[in-house]
């Protein structure tokens, strides 16, 4: 554990991390029509976790987020590839996308696109890769 004299960064980080997470999710969702998307959303998400690494130490964060990030990256790539394979069921070229408008209870008329599923894979892959890189160069072991 670090010495408790970094009270400012701790207080700021606790608030900022939530804001960055929200922003990352916003970036991710807006990415279908506006600037954003899985890649940049994933990077913003990873940057929040990296801020946690800086503020607290790696051990503490690991205890609270007990994920193997290499596995997160692998699962992300798998999701991306498998959603691409989904287009085989409809006999259209690999990675084809489809979208439609649906009426959902709270959101009203909503556009749902299969590209978002692919993007989730991309986001997970980016998060996993970025955090694996940071953790391997930041770890002293």
């Amino acid at each position, binding site marked *: 554990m670090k010495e408790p004299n970094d009270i400012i960064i701790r207080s700021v980080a606790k608030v900022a991390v939530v804001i960055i997470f929200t922003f990352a999710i916003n970036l991710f969702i807006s990415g279908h029509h506006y600037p954003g998307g899985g890649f940049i959303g994933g990077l913003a998400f990873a940057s929040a976790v990296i801020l946690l690494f800086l503020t607290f130490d790696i051990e503490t964060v690991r205890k609270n987020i007990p994920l193997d990030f*290499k*596995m997160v*990256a*692998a*699962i992300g*790539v*798998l999701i991306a*590839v*498998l959603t*691409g*394979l989904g*287009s*085989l069921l409809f*006999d*259209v*070229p*690999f*990675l*084809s*996308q489809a979208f439609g408008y649906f009426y959902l209870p709270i959101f009203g008329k909503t556009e749902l696109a299969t590209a978002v599923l692919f993007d989730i894979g991309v986001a997970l892959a980016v998060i996993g890769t970025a955090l694996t890189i940071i953790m391997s160069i930041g770890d002293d072991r």
Partner: protein
Amino acid sequence: MNNIVIFPIIIPVIFGMIMIIFRKRLKLQRYLSLISMAAVGIVTVYLMLQVKSEGIQTLHLGGWVAPFGVTMVVDMLAALLITTTSIVAFCCLLYAFRTIGTERENFYFYPLFLFLITGVIGSFMTGDVFNLFVCFEVMLVASYVLISLGGTKIQLRESIKYILINILSSFLFLVAIAFLYAMTGTLNFAHLSLRVAEVGQDGLMTTVAILFLIVFSLKAGLFLFFWLPGAYSAPPTAISAIFAALLTKVGIYAIVRMFTLVFYHEPEVTHLFIGILAAITMVLGAVGAVAFWDIKRILTYNVIVGVGFILAGVASFTTVGMTGALYYLIHDMIVKALIFLLGGTVIYLTGTSNLRDLSGLIRLHPQLGWMFFIAALSLSGIPPLSGFLGKLFISEGTFEAGYFWLGAIGLFTSLMVLYSIMKVFMNAFWGYTVIKEEEEQGTTAGLLLPIGILTALTIALGIGTQAIHEYVDLAVEVLMNPSFYIEAVLGLNPKP
């Protein structure tokens, strides 16, 4: 549109990712890696039959048609190379099970191996220059890790050189792509071919072509091979065998594709240049192979001679020469993996790679000795083994094109190759047996199976050439007539 086209690429990706998730289950990983390579082989053979009956198969990813989207193209050349790749990879995996060691297996050896194969297969299938770059990078990044995996001193030293040289060549590759895009406004192979034919291949275009040639030469080990002997002798046998069998071949494939499909208008400049480089490569490689007394060095220099020889066929730019180059390319993938596995086994058994310390192994390992003998003959192109036809056609092609010096150098260096590899055979297997069976570092149990498969294949390819004759002819037909490829990709009027 044919969705099966994508499978040879994504099968290894999916299996590799599953393996990362099940990192601790080594046995599962071994089975999965074998299954994935077998699946790739089966799918590709199926594709090959489709290509034969229906013409070149293409897939525009996501429905975005060429030249705007990402296109995957399987013509006969790609199908033949991918099939060979899967067989060679299968055998190298079988060999790796016994020799690679749990430590490397624990650190993602099998996923990395599959990603390497993904990059190689992707390079063979991609329909545009930029994705060729991407697939090269996939392959290279996997190879960076594989070459340094294990972290012995020699591996780290060689991997630094290997990474630096490849980063430089990747940079040059990007520069060349940027030039090409600025001049033609497209990167799709078929579209490029059309555009270059329209505006003509002037001096500037030829310069860009030479820049591409330099980039691919660095990867293929054509003339610019100074990094190759060190890098290929550093990693363990299974890895260096797959490197020797596949990585240089991807560079050769890229040269073949570029200089038959896009930059074929000035053969007296570009193809002659390839020919000159090939001649120098053959001579230097053969000198290296003859000079050294270290098994690994001799074998890696033989890789270089092979590269030069295949490109001599490409340089002739005649139907016969291309046929020869293709036969020899397939032969070389198999036999280089075979000879590396054999050499690696000798080193594994005796613990030394110095020929002067070896003697009389054939008394203890008759099968190994005889298979080495067959591989050595095949490597130097003795009939009826698989190297013969390729050698014959390449020589014929160079003579037909009027490059008598090139053909002569090719034949002369074949003799040097024969000498160098016979030197290994005679020193390692003949003579007084100096090593006792109980003194050996390991056993050949399980190692002879992959070696046996590859040996059987080189014999079968030599005797049963008739079986693949049709397919090779189809591949060469497409290479010599770019219009087939263009029509298939741009959908003008699909023909074989």
